[in-house]
């Protein structure tokens, strides 16, 4: 799959990798049993420190998206293939409502982040 890193973004680099893995699973680009690239290989390709990639993989493990195994690397879990239709529908409704209210993307994101903190 395609991995991108935006060095100009405020989002930490490891978090960008985590977000892309989530997105790839949601889109079906990654299926349960699929293996993520070896941390060293992905780090080299994106000119990142290997610890950045490992931190992303550890977070994905903590979130239950991947299994980390010494011999096989990071493997997408069966639990990763959750049905996110309800979340996506709600998100679409939320974005539509935010546009209706003429909220800026930044303000919309802030609202979402605030809600997540509760």
């Amino acid at each position, binding site marked *: *799959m395609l*991995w991108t890193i935006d060095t100009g973004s405020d989002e930490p680099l490891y978090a960008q990798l985590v977000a892309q893995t989530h997105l790839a699973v949601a889109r079906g680009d990654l299926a349960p049993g699929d293996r993520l690239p070896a941390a060293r290989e992905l780090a080299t390709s994106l000119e990142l420190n290997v610890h950045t990639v490992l931190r992303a993989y550890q977070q994905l493990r903590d979130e239950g998206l991947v299994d980390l195994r010494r011999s096989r690397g990071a493997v997408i879990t069966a639990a990763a293939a959750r049905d996110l239709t309800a979340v996506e529908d709600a998100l679409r409704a939320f974005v539509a409502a935010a546009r209706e209210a003429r909220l800026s993307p930044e303000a919309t994101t802030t609202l979402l982040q605030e809600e997540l903190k509760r």
Partner: protein
Amino acid sequence: MTTPLDTVRTDWHGRARRSTLWSSVAGLGLTLTAAAVVRSWRDDLPARVATHWGPDGTPDATMTVTGLVTAVLALTVGLLALFAVVGLVWGSSASTRRMAAGSAVWSGGLGATLLLVGAGAQRGLDDASSATLSGWAVAATILLPLVPAVVAALVVPGDARQPADAPVPPEAARARLGTDERAAWLRTAQGGTGLAVGAAAVVGTTVLAVLTRQWPLLLVPAVLTLLFAAMFAFRVRVDATGLTARSVLGWPGTHVPADEVVAASVVHVDPFREFGGWGWRVGFRGGRIGIVLRAGEALLVERTGERSLVVTVDDAATGAALLNTLADRSRQNRTPH
């Protein structure tokens, strides 16, 4: 407008002529030396030597010593001519020149072992009908020539760096990538039909060794298994350095630097028609290198020096677009002369 391809053309043709010449001479030398040794054994050999053994291990065909030497020389010369054509016509990539040179030396070595092992076993015999051939002898005949072949392949020099002078054509697909963005595309290319063909070859040679009870011949399926394992799956990567495709076993592999990419695109590949089989292949068209594990969608990279590489991999469009974009970047980053 400069025509850099013309200078490059003479470049690889010269390299191909050199490696073809010395590897053919070395191969022929091996067989001729063995032929001279066998002729010096003449007084020890039966008038007609056994040249073929039936399934029960007794000879079922014989030849005069001169006939044997002539037949083996003809075989060697035929194989040398074949690999010379491969090297001279399709040798734009160093890997192809290596393979052609290694195969030429292997052919000469095969001629030598055929003569030395076949005739050597019959020294001191009055009659060829009592000649026996052990499984070890057969395995050695096939596998021993691999040693000088590998040495020859390693001696062939690699390709010189040939950065492209022209930009990637504007009509080639690009990936959307911000100036602060880095990107990498990683996939695994896996086999289909080729794997089945390989498994059939391994099973076939194993059954043959078991049925004839020639246990040393099990070395042949062992070597084949290793070969097919190396060809079974390749990791493909596009990043700022260019395109890398490497067997999951670590060998074979290749790397196309981003600044040597002329253009990348998506093509449809028929491995058998265009490459004569599956795995790491040399194509019939202009010495194109193919890592062709299945039919269908593939990533084609046209490279400087009349070289090209095709890899059968899913989602090739994403890889091609990213490679074109990173090739653009490699041109921008180059320090002006």
